[in-house]
């Protein structure tokens, strides 16, 4: 599903963000990427959804070879990938429901289907009762659940989450992980980048550790 072969990414010419990274993620896997701040976690995710472009190496994702990707194809690549950010990135002038529906409208989902689909993912996120609220009236955990609902609304094959619990307390954080597990159980490949070890300790999931842009370790935890 995802394959990175000898991927290197430079910033500002010579400082390296990622060095010779090799990574293979199977369809339906749920993995964590960890490491200290500045280890390259965010860069790795950005390379996957083409917000950054690798300087060396090859990246294959959801059937796309990013080296050969044309600019016109970027939106279509991203429709296969749901993205969750640490700062949620919700549109504050839209309600919870509208945020989720908006993502569906962007990719051309027929109006008739949007309502039902949006309600389904809000149900998954446990937020149906908040559908008409504006994001700023919600707690951080709730806002992140809206962001997740939006990310999976278009049924992506891959879900990328960059420090999804970075702004949340422990209880909200484990609720988020539960939702990820639920999404993963339906077949979606999930990659979570986090420095919070509590999220994956004794999870039984594969954990990849980055340090100074290199893969420093890999194993089940």
């Amino acid at each position: 599903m995802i394959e990175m072969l000898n991927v290197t990414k430079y910033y500002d010419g010579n400082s390296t963000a990622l060095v010779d990274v090799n990574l293979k993620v199977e369809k339906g896997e749920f993995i964590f990427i960890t490491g200290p701040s500045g280890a390259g976690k965010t860069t790795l995710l950005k390379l996957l959804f083409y917000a950054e472009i690798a300087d060396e190496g090859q990246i294959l994702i959801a059937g796309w070879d990013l080296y050969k990707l044309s600019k016109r194809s970027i939106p279509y690549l991203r429709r296969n990938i749901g993205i969750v950010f640490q700062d949620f990135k919700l549109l504050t002038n839209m309600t919870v429901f509208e945020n989720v529906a908006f993502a569906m409208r962007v990719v051309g989902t027929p109006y008739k289907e949007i309502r039902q689909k949006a309600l389904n993912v809000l149900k998954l996120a446990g937020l149906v009762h908040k559908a008409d609220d504006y994001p700023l009236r919600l707690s951080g955990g709730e806002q992140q659940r809206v962001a997740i609902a939006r990310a999976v609304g278009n049924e992506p094959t891959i879900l990328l989450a960059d420090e999804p619990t970075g702004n949340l307390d422990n209880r909200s954080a484990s609720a988020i992980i539960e939702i990820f597990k639920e999404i993963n159980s339906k077949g979606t490949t999930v990659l979570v980048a986090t420095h919070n070890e509590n999220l994956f300790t004794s999870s039984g999931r594969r954990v990849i550790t980055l340090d100074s842009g290199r893969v420093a370790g890999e194993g089940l935890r």
Partner: protein
Amino acid sequence: MISYHLSEGLRNISRNKLLTLTAIFTISVSMMIFGIFLILFLNLNLLHEGWGERIQITVYLKDDTDKDGLIKEIKKEKEVAEVIYTSKEKALAEFRKELGREKEVLDSIGENPLPASLDVSVKKEYRSSEFIEPLVETIKMLSGVEEVHYGEEWVKDLTSLLKGLRVTGLFLGSLLALGIIFITSNTIRLTLYARQEEIEIMKFIGATKGFIRGPFLVEGALQGFGAGVLSVLLLYLFYSIAAYGIDFRLPGFNPGFLALSALIPIPLSGFLLGLLGSLFSMGRFLK
């Protein structure tokens, strides 16, 4: 999809009412300047044509000239519309009439001092200095011709003024068009800054460039179109005021307003320039 672009574009406008109104007003002022220029040009053309009718070449004849032969010769020239003969006697009678009470002066001279003359009028399409001057030269060469007069100075002046205005118009038009593109692109850029986050999110969700662009194109095009309509209305207002004043000063001259065929392109070009302006501002934003 189109209904989405339209409704979002209109929403942008209603969210930034003041900004949009300012832009519409500024654009309409530049369009109006061009419109005023067009009207000026049109009316100078009308004036040129009106005065042109009065362009007449007066040919003074030597005494004892074969006038019928001369008239025949002059009529052969393709530029000539009509030739009217005024005899020595008629010229004297007209002069007497003009002199009124002073006519005794003529009586004291005894002999008729005035020459016979021919008034040559020129066909409409040849009423400019480039045709009239060679015609005058040809007539001067004919036998029996004493002197030839015509309003040479102002024919030259008006012709070259109109030529100059045509060039100025082209220059002014392109300059103002650039200005309009600049204004729209700046207004749209401000909207873009205000909605930067939304655009970023749309990109991550997988929105195509066309989808993101649509509402902003609608916004720019509507701005330009609105400005075009406003400028036509303002032009008509100013024209009416000015025409009222001209009526007093130049009786008999009917100032003209732009025809419908010249008016319709104004909002239409506003529409296109607005579209272009928003395209430009987004080029960099959507990279």
